[in-house]
């Protein structure tokens, strides 16, 4: 399959969204709201619950299932308060020694005057900065779209997993083609060149695991095993490994 088809597929309606994963992994999920600074962003869902016998904090970027839901969730594009809610809940997870699971599906951070003026850049920067030092395990999963900085803001983790049919990219292929070649028709060329698919990113050492879509039950078991493994690490080692995980990117 062409890489661009994977991008288009990752955007399709009818896919599992963050809510589906949360319901399967953490059936007794308790949702929490608000960033305590400005408001509550419906593009980001956060809360706690049991992953089997382990209490975890789960944060997901939710797109919604139909047009009405999609509008309500801002099409899965988070405002600064969404990233700040995520960070608040991660800090809470650190306090109570809960592992964090991030489920990422976004075409990118929200683009707008208000988002800019409330500090979209600062909000993403804060997440990267604080997550690099968060004293509890973090596992991130790209389940659909991994759109640029808006997705990266929930991926400063001990491990980044990716669905086989998801993509993770520095820029959307369309914008890339438009900026470089002034021709949006070349989006497929851009997609092919950006190395945005799970196999290519795995080969580059940028993601840690490629997951088979569909079988949520086995996926839940794999996540549980991974979280148990991360929980078993000494915090100093966990943070050193997390540092090195990103330190070696590009070098």
């Amino acid at each position, binding site marked *: 399959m062409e890489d661009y088809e994977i991008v288009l597929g990752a955007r399709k309606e009818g896919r599992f969204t963050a809510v589906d994963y949360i319901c399967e992994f953490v059936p007794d999920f308790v949702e929490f709201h608000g960033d305590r600074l400005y408001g509550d962003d419906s593009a980001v869902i956060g809360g706690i619950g049991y992953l089997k016998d382990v209490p975890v904090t789960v944060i997901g970027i939710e797109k919604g299932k139909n047009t009405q839901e999609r509008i309500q969730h801002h099409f899965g594009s988070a405002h600064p308060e969404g990233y700040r809610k995520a960070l608040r809940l991660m800090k809470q997870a650190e306090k109570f020694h809960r592992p964090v699971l991030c489920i990422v599906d976004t075409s990118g*951070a929200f*683009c*707008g*005057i208000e*988002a*800019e*003026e*409330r*500090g*979209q*850049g*600062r909000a*993403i*920067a*804060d997440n*990267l*900065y*604080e997550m*690099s*030092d968060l004293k509890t395990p973090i596992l991130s999963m790209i389940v659909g779209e991994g759109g*640029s*900085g808006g997705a*990266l*803001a929930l*991926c*400063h983790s001990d491990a980044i997993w990716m669905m086989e049919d998801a993509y*993770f*990219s*520095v*820029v959307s292929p369309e*914008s*890339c083609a438009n*900026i*470089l070649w002034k021709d949006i028709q070349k989006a497929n*060329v851009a997609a092919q*060149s*950006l*190395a*945005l698919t799970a196999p290519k*990113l795995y080969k*580059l050492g*940028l993601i840690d695991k490629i997951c088979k879509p569909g079988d949520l039950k086995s996926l839940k078991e794999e996540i549980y095993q991974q979280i148990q493994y991360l929980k078993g690490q000494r915090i100093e080692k966990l943070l050193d490994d*997390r*540092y090195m995980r*990103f*330190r070696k*990117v*590009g*070098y």
Partner: protein
Amino acid sequence: MGLKTFFLHANNELESGGQMLRPRKVCCKECQRQIPVSKIRKNNFVCPECGYYFTMRARRRILMLTDKRSFIELDRDLESINILDFPDYDEKLSAAREKSREKEGVICGTARIGGKETAIFSMDANFMMGSMGAVVGEKITRLFEYATEKKLSVVGVTVSGGARMQEGMISLMQMSKVSAAIKRHSNLGNLYIVLLTNPTTGGVDASLAMQGDITLAEPNARVGFAGPRVIEKSLNQTLPKDFQKASRVLECGFIDAIVPRKQQKEYIEKLLVLHDV
């Protein structure tokens, strides 16, 4: 840096703010007046007629901010490669090296500022819009690691269009890499002063530009995450005139102070002294 290369840089840097007319005069982009290069240079690359800020080259900025002959460059030989085999990237890199006469889009090193030993990085708009790829990320990360080890403050000057698309996710994850190094530097009580210059956007805005202990900006610098045209197009909103301008970003609470070019060295010196133990 030899004297010869120094003058080559001096000519190049006026290209981004105005059009070179004859060898010794430049047409200001803002007021359209023809101004002798020597006058602009003496005025820290600010138009003496209208106050327009010409883009300053990375090395020139370091010279302006640091004590005479104190700058020692680190990692100057790191060069980018076309790791993803991205179309036209090799040509773009060659053109950028030619245009900027630099190997990459950031210059790092140590220098004294008001007598105080400091680590400094300065991004270069003439190298692919100051975009951050693996080498830019690596050089800044190494600088913060060096500064952490030596307990030095870091002064950083940003100018960037964001992550460098041609290196894909390797570029994007430089944001993560640099952020982690800045956090470690901070955890040990070290100071990071960042000076935002026009434009500081995208992935650089969403990482190292917004992680300073003290955030300064140049007058009129554009600072923001998303491009203004993208916002206009996607939302059909007309943007306010001061949108993403340093003055507005300060009002919104994300900048400590706007410092005119002429005062920047003195201002930073004062901040360094205030953090001296």
